[in-house]
């Protein structure tokens, strides 16, 4: 529904059967209805039971977010949907590989920033460095802005609720 209400960023986590086509169903739901995906990650989290976890960062009004969650929950291979922004608090992390290229001076400068912002050096050549940086999306943004890299590869947001509450399948 179109309303004038403000759009908000939500982190939604989804537990799904790890089967072919499941990611296409989730993405198709967003693209087919014109919803945004700001970030999306997916990986198997329970091999024994064949379950994957999808982390989606999206933005929308309250009504649109409710609709997205209801549509996700309706998909046959979807077990559970949790909106960490609403049901929080939650921990969110992202990982990035950041390549900096340049002369000695430039690289030393980057190493200093990395040291101060807790980025890890994972590859070092005379004319290029690669850093691994983990943190909130904002922390990554800040690091990237400072080192002015040639190339960035970001993994997307992974998130998990704080405390004993967990997103687990019902049975089986």
């Amino acid at each position, binding site marked *: *529904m179109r309303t004038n209400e403000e759009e908000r960023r939500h982190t939604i986590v989804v537990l799904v059967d790890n089967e*072919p086509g499941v990611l296409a169903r989730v993405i198709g739901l967003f693209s087919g209805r014109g919803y945004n995906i700001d970030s999306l990650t997916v990986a198997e989290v329970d091999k024994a039971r064949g379950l994957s976890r999808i982390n989606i960062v999206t933005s929308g009004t309250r009504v649109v977010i409710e609709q997205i969650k209801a549509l996700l929950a309706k998909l*046959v291979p979807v077990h559970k949907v949790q909106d960490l922004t609403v049901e929080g608090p939650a921990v969110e992390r992202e990982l990035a590989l950041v390549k900096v290229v340049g002369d000695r001076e430039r690289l030393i400068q980057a190493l200093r920033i990395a040291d101060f912002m807790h980025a890890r050096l994972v590859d070092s050549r005379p004319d290029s460095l690669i850093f691994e940086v983990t943190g909130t999306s904002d922390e990554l943004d800040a690091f990237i802005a400072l080192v002015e890299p040639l190339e960035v590869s970001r993994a997307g947001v992974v998130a998990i609720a704080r405390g004993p509450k967990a997103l687990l399948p019902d049975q089986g």
Partner: protein
Amino acid sequence: MPASSLATDTAQLTGAQVIVKALQDQGVELIFGYPGGAVLPLYDVLFQQDKIRHILVRHEQAAVHAAEGYARSTGKVGVVLVTSGPGATNTVTGLTDALMDSTPIVCLTGQVPTHMIGNDAFQEADTVGITRPCTKHNYLVKRPEDLARIIHEAFHVARSGRPGPVVVDLPKNIQMGKAPYVGPEAVRLRGYHPRREPDLARVEEAIELLLRAQRPIFYVGGGVINAGPAACVLLTELVRATGAPITLTLMGLGAYPASDPQFLGMLGMHGTYEANMAMYSCDLMLAIGARFDDRVTGRLDGFSPHSKKVHVDIDPSSINKNVVVDVPIVGDAELTLLAMLDCFRRRANEHDPERLTAWWQQIAKWREVDSLRFRQDGKAIKPQTAIKRLWEKTRDRDVYVTTDVGQHQMWAAQHFKFDKPMRWLTSGGLGTMGFGFPAAIGVQLAHPKATVLCISGDASFVMNMQEMSTAMQYRLPIKTFILNNQYMGMVRQWQDFFHGSRHAESYMDALPDFVKLAEAFGAVGLRATTIDELDPVIDAALAADRPVIVDVVVERMENVYPMIPGGAAHNEIKLSPEDNGPHEPISEEGMVLV
């Protein structure tokens, strides 16, 4: 292999035999299909058994519509079988139609062998990719050991929760190789548990509102029909017990008896004045199995602005989608209506019927407007007269009506009165021209003794007229009435209203002679051109024991009223061509609506 030997030696079955056995165990009686290279193993097994009857259609789109007709008139799952590539792509319109109108369908599609998938093989199409957005769920079977379970799951998903179409894509090597059989108990859908039981606290809240409401209305859709005849009986009991008025959507017609005085008629774009005004003015709306479609709500900010809203639906994503409601109830309509009725009866002493007197007086005033009136003067047949006579002449029969899409569909919805559910089959959500005739085939096969009418338009009928051949092959005495205005009437009406009467491509030039067309298929062709010819032609059609096409030549320029123009609210309804009343010119926002 005969059916009996299928059952005994399940260890030695081929994939195709497993599929047919699974269909038999699901109680399938009829399959609508069309053969091709990728499904020949399946056809070979079907040929050698006699539990399941295969109906050969003449186009795969029609197979799905026929299965929809079967499903919606019986409450069972409709089954379709088509080949790979073009066979599968031809089903897309039917699948989308079934998805929009929540119709349970299992569609089996052939596929190239697994090792050739992705090679652009002959008649290969990415069927699961193409049908993902137009099915409730779909499967590509890649391992023989998954085959039987997936077929059973497909039936379970199609019929449970909010029903819908499910595609199972079957590579040819999977059909031909050996495969183990498992029964329906093997279904293992770990994350799929549609909620059926309503939250009783919410039901209590709804009844509390109902007991206090001064101007309540029930707004009921096809979901109640999908929930089954028992749900419709409960609905009727509840509405009668409360004394409140009820309106039905296009898909809901028949869920409540049209002849009952509490029924206000259909609502929405071409609904009655009283239904739309009551929706606008109510203080409590009880929406059950209806989805606040834009054809029903009109302009959203003008939709029933003063009411509290209760919404009962099996599909949580239908709630708060278009209209935010006060009391959402997720549940099956039958179980929810039962709980509502229980609760209402428990609190019957709090119910004061007198409080609705003023509301009914107001409704009586709206009814006096007589918004479905039309004038049958002169010799030319008014399309409304044709529908009215058809209804009057079939009232004592066991009658089913299918339609196509356009003006004739709306006139049929307005003037043909249904007292029972599952008798009215129309393409509501997708608005698919070409639905009516193949759907009638499915209905007539499910109800061989019933009178099956297809009310169509000259443009719509031509979209699937090849199915006359199917109707002839299976001797189905379907009576098709083409309201022939030589226009795509509904398109012409919109052009007259919104596009300066420029009739761009809405004139049906070079139409066939429908009488000769019928005769070419070996069917009966009849024609009525004046009002005196109408009754005799209807009688002759009803008496025929073969398919009949009746070419009803109607008044060409007639328009459907009432009409709420796109982007207008319920109280801005236009009643007749003369009605230029207090209406705003149609807004730009309204013009972009379909």
